């Protein structure tokens, strides 16, 4: 039985068959300038161009402060870039929408709702009947390993538990695009591995498009079709690495796979270069 049934209302456009890759997200020469408190401007993102195909799993790696979150906010429609533009399914992004579901680094749960209330929120908002929304939400809560905690309030949860509620809350309303900002950052290694597998299962079944920010090279290679490595000050794309590993992937197999190991080592080196360049420009 599927944990997250496809919503009947969501239909793929006839042109977006899987035969030829279709751009789901296009980021076109995007720059983002911030006014900082000293009336000085800070270039967080500089001339970023990136195309993410429908159903692709793309990870972003880069040092802290290189603009990963900012890029995600732009795709989410929460922040309007100071230059360039972003598109989803060929339409310019003008604001947030339920087709793009964010999982924020800061969780941003609704503290006045308990776990079940948080996870149900999006479904109820979209007019799903209470009983149906509750049943689906309970299954998701179970999937993220929080069965028994349905009636807990966010303040009563640990950091890792909050993070899992945030993931479930976004998965619940079936966004076509997932924008995940270090969603597994606060989890222990075992829960992390389990949720990585669950996320891959959902992704393989529903063919969601995923834009995934992480600090773990290992995780990025394991999950992704493409890994984007960024540099800092200003935030630029250093390199895009295509991860050509067969799917479905199993962690236990991959760890011994020399191709996998090579990807990890190569990307580690890339990031070392990024940090080295910062020290000795």
């Amino acid at each position, binding site marked *: 039985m599927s944990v997250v049934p496809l919503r009947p209302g969501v239909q793929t456009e006839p042109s977006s068959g899987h035969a030829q890759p279709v751009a789901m997200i296009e980021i076109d020469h995007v720059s983002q300038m911030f006014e900082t408190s000293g009336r000085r401007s800070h270039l967080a993102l500089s001339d970023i161009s990136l195309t993410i195909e429908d159903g692709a799993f793309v990870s972003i790696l880069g040092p802290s402060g290189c603009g990963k979150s900012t890029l995600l*906010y732009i795709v*989410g*429609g*929460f922040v309007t870039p100071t230059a360039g533009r972003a598109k989803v399914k060929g339409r310019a992004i003008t*604001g*947030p*929408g*339920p087709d*793009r*579901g*964010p999982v*924020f680094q*800061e969780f*941003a*749960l*609704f*503290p*006045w*709702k*308990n776990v079940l209330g948080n996870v149900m*929120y*999006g479904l109820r*908002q*979209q007019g799903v009947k209470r009983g149906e929304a509750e049943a689906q939400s309970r299954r998701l809560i179970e999937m993220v390993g929080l069965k028994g905690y349905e009636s807990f*309030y*966010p*303040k009563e949860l640990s950091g890792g538990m909050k993070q899992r509620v945030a993931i479930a*809350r*976004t998965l619940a*309303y079936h*966004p076509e695009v997932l924008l995940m900002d270090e969603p597994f950052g606060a989890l222990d290694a075992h829960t992390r591995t389990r949720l990585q597998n669950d996320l891959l299962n959902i992704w393989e079944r529903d063919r969601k498009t995923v834009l995934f920010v992480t600090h773990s090279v290992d995780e990025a290679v394991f999950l992704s079709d493409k890994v984007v490595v960024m540099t800092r000050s200003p935030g630029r794309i250093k390199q895009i690495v295509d991860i050509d590993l067969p799917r479905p992937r199993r962690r236990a197999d991959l760890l011994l796979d020399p191709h996998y190991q090579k990807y990890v080592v190569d990307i580690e080196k890339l990031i070392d270069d990024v940090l080295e360049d910062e020290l000795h420009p």
Partner: protein
Amino acid sequence: MSASLIGRRLSPLLACIGLLCIWQAAALVLKTDSFPTALEAIRAIPSILGDHEALLNILDSLRRMVIGLVLAALVSIPLGLMMGRSRAIASFFNPLLMVVYPVPKAALMPVIMLWLGVGDVSKTLVIFLGVSIPIIYHSFQGAKAVEEKMLWSGAAMGLSAPQRMFRIVLPAALPEILTGCRTGLVLALITMVTSEMIARQNGAGNILFNALDMAQYETVFAMIIIIGAMGIVLDAAFEKLRARLVRWSEPDVDIPVSFS
């Protein structure tokens, strides 16, 4: 029930008894007509509460107070929330509020009486003005502090701007709003008595100041005890309601009777 819980329940009572003891001792030492002992004042309470007329007067006061407070909440909460979320609205209303803030609202009573008479409308309006500012201020602070990402999450789920105001900003700011309402409640009581001191027509304040004019000092102090008790009971009841409504928020230090 643990010993510490019993202690916590009992200590406000002990404080009240202590205060009455000091009063009793001070009055016995001073021995002036205008300062009856605590026991004399307490003995005068049943005759006030037993008097049909006096009781109606006190209920009238309470009614005006509740109406003034509720109307103020209905206007101040939305205004404060909108100020907290919109810089333009905030910078429009802020100077106005700054002008109104330091004016003692009861001091407006004579002017308001000229326009609206000495009846309920004037007194309710003064209470309304007296409690609005703390409620606006706390609603404003509460709305301003709402985490941006929470609103973004709502927007991504398809909530429109008014829906986000009502279903995210309002509940998220509720603990702060209720703190403002609690301050407002105490201020309402103060303004209520003051307004009746100026517009001497009926009400709890009127009983107090009439007794003062007639040198019935036991009644004066009995009324002070009654008004003080009303304050404690109303505050405690409101605190119960508040705690129930915002159980989800950070646990507050639980003080059974407190003076905001």
